[in-house]
């Protein structure tokens, strides 16, 4: 296979570069620009002007079409479709178009459709974005809608979606942020499960250090807790502070946050939590790759509605534990959080029909039996009672945990300010800097406060 001999000298050759006029060079530079413009398509910069939604349907007895957007797994898509079928069977004049994506893509897609003037009539919302969507007038105050009955939901839970004199989101269900312990890791290390009604943060350090010391290499007492702000919110509340004040300003002191991060370094130094690289990796892996999910650790922090995913990843029963420091703090810090919200577009042509559908998902027992604990334990207390027996063992476990917790909880968190969607990224990045000792806990606290103030101002 002789290559050169078979290939003749190319027939045409370019003129010398020296002869090339400036114009040609400039022309090529433009080509370069276009190449730069063409490639990628990163993140879809294409904007669209917001324009009022136009629709041909006139209302009345005519057929009504609603679009319902949500994020989630395949399981959720399937059961939402069941709920939609059940609803449309009762209301034959209403059609519901299912519009779903994964969590990661949901917010990109939702903000883009809003920009395009094509806001879904009913959508799932989350606390970190709800206020933003409400202040920009994308979602409407639902308290005036007659087809929506909110009386079945406890005031304390409902209030989380109520601000600026309006009910902009209706909680779907409740959750709490708790420690998930792996009894088998405890047993293998010969460490007793703590009494979570009395344990202190010192106990936490002691217990997790003991687990690491008495476990094989690669098994740790706990997963690092510093990547998320809910854990800190609880820690601050135990000291009588808050993450956010009701007016959206920061409600904690620099010292408290620095203390929280110092403790995380203490745990790392003691070997109770993994080295920084491992912590970052585990954090990025989600519930399935968490220490508790993989049998590599004694404790991880999660929302209670993730217990199912964690349990099936671990392959055996896990135990929910209250936060340390609940008994000896100034007050208890744990809280019920609406896991998600239903919101209705402010530009929908059919607000009452949309309200009817939300009411169905919220208050109908049959719908509740399909949804079960997919969106946290049902917000409507009578629905929660009615569907209890259909729960899986894991759901029963979290239901019991939440029921026990009820009496000790003081109040829920104030709705986070506009821009708090970014806080999750800020704290993750700063925590990485802390774990790799690029900055001290004091510097980290300062940086966090200034960045969050900037993001939420």
């Amino acid at each position: 296979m002789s290559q050169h001999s078979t290939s003749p000298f190319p027939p045409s050759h370019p003129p010398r570069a020296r002869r090339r006029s400036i114009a040609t060079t400039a022309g090529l530079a433009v080509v370069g620009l276009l190449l730069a413009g063409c490639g990628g398509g990163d993140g879809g910069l294409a904007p669209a002007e917001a324009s009022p939604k136009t629709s041909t349907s006139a209302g009345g007895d005519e057929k009504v079409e609603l679009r319902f957007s949500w994020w989630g797994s395949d399981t959720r898509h399937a059961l939402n479709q069941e709920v939609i079928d059940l609803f449309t069977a009762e209301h034959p004049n209403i059609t519901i178009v299912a519009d779903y994506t994964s969590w990661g893509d949901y917010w990109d897609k939702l903000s883009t459709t809003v920009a395009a003037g094509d806001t879904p009539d009913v959508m799932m919302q989350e606390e970190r974005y709800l206020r933003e969507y409400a202040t920009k007038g994308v979602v409407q105050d639902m308290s005036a809608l007659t087809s929506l009955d909110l009386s079945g939901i406890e005031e304390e839970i409902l209030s989380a979606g109520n601000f600026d004199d309006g009910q902009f989101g209706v909680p779907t269900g409740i959750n709490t942020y708790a420690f998930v312990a792996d009894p088998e890791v405890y047993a293998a290390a010969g460490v007793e499960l703590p009494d979570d009604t009395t344990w202190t943060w010192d106990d936490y350090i002691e217990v997790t250090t003991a687990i690491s010391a008495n476990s094989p290499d690669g098994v740790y007492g706990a997963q690092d807790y510093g990547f998320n702000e809910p854990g800190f919110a609880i820690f601050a509340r135990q000291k009588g502070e808050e993450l956010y004040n009701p007016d959206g300003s920061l409600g904690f002191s620099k010292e408290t946050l620095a203390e929280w991060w110092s403790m995380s370094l203490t745990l790392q130094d003691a070997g109770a939590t993994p080295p920084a690289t491992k912590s970052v990796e585990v954090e990025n892996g989600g519930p399935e790759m968490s220490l508790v999910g993989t049998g590599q650790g004694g404790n991880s922090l999660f929302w209670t509605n993730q217990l199912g995913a964690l349990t099936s990843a671990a392959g055996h029963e896990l135990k929910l534990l209250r936060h340390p420091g609940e008994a000896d703090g100034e007050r208890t810090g744990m809280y019920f959080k609406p896991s998600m919200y239903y919101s209705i577009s402010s530009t929908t042509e059919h607000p009452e029909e949309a309200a009817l559908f939300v009411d169905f998902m919220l208050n109908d027992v049959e719908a509740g039996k399909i949804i079960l604990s997919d969106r946290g334990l049902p917000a409507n207390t009578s629905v929660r009672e009615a569907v209890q027996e259909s729960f899986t063992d894991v759901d029963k476990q979290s239901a019991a945990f939440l029921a026990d917790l009820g009496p000790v909880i003081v109040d829920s968190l104030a709705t986070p300010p506009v821009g708090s969607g970014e806080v999750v990224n800020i704290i993750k990045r700063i925590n990485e800097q802390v774990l790799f000792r690029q900055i001290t806990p004091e510097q980290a606290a300062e940086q966090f406060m200034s960045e969050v103030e900037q993001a939420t101002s």
Partner: protein
Amino acid sequence: MSAPTELRSTTRTAGRRGRRGPATASEKRDAKAALFFLAPWAVGLVLITVGPITASLYLSFTDYSLLAPPEWIGLENYERMIDDPRLHTALAVTFRYVFISVPLQLIAALGLAMILDRGVRGLAIYRSMYYLPSLLGGSVAVAILWRQVFGTDGLVNQLLAFFGIQGQGWVSHPEYALGTLMILNVWTFGAPMVIFLAGLRQIPEMYYEAAAIDGAGKVRLFFSITIPLLTPIIFFNLVLQVINAFQSFTQAFIVSGGSGGPADSTLFFTLYLYQKGFGALDMGYASAMAWLLLGIIAALTAVNFFASKYWVFYND
């Protein structure tokens, strides 16, 4: 898009320029046909590329949250860039990535092209094999694979353990994470390699023969014949790969889980732009960032073209 096309089209333009006069009927027919075949591309260009680019220029002067109509704020977005430490981090990360990984990638591409050019049995198979990473390199699947390979329990550490070295999580360490992405970019050397291979074929064998008779060794042949005659191709690859590297997004997005972490060590410019636009819903600022990137790439490309006068040799 390949080097020979570019070279040839330049020649054609030069040829046309010489003749002036009324177009003949057949030329008119050709022009109509050309317009007809260009139409789909032109429509796409206007709607999908030029339209959005123009709109983003307007948006870069506005405060735009996507949820509410944009508000004109003049140059404020551009002024904010001056005091945005994360933007500066993103620029530093991106420049380091481009200036280290692109030269390495081109060296790898040229090296392998030289080996394959020597006439290996089953060349087509090797060529395809080495080209494959170029097709896959930007994909989500490969980025996920990368995260595994360079993870704490990944392939790399298992290899190191075999030699008795205690590894660590490479993608999750701020000092090494960017390095793993550079390796990923170098690994996708297939596309420039194929172009180099084509370029090497065009160097007439007689030059080598003549030089060999004069007593030139292999190294001398490489530096005095191969490299000078290949400079137009090197130049073409350099421009293209620099532009590509500046726009890298997927790798960092997947490997860092969208954060650009650990501790912003893989915060590519495009990734930060995405975080600003869709995470912080600050689309005005993100648009301004896009124009800054466009400006940087255009300036570098212009510098590249200017500098090429001094080192690119067009043999005629």
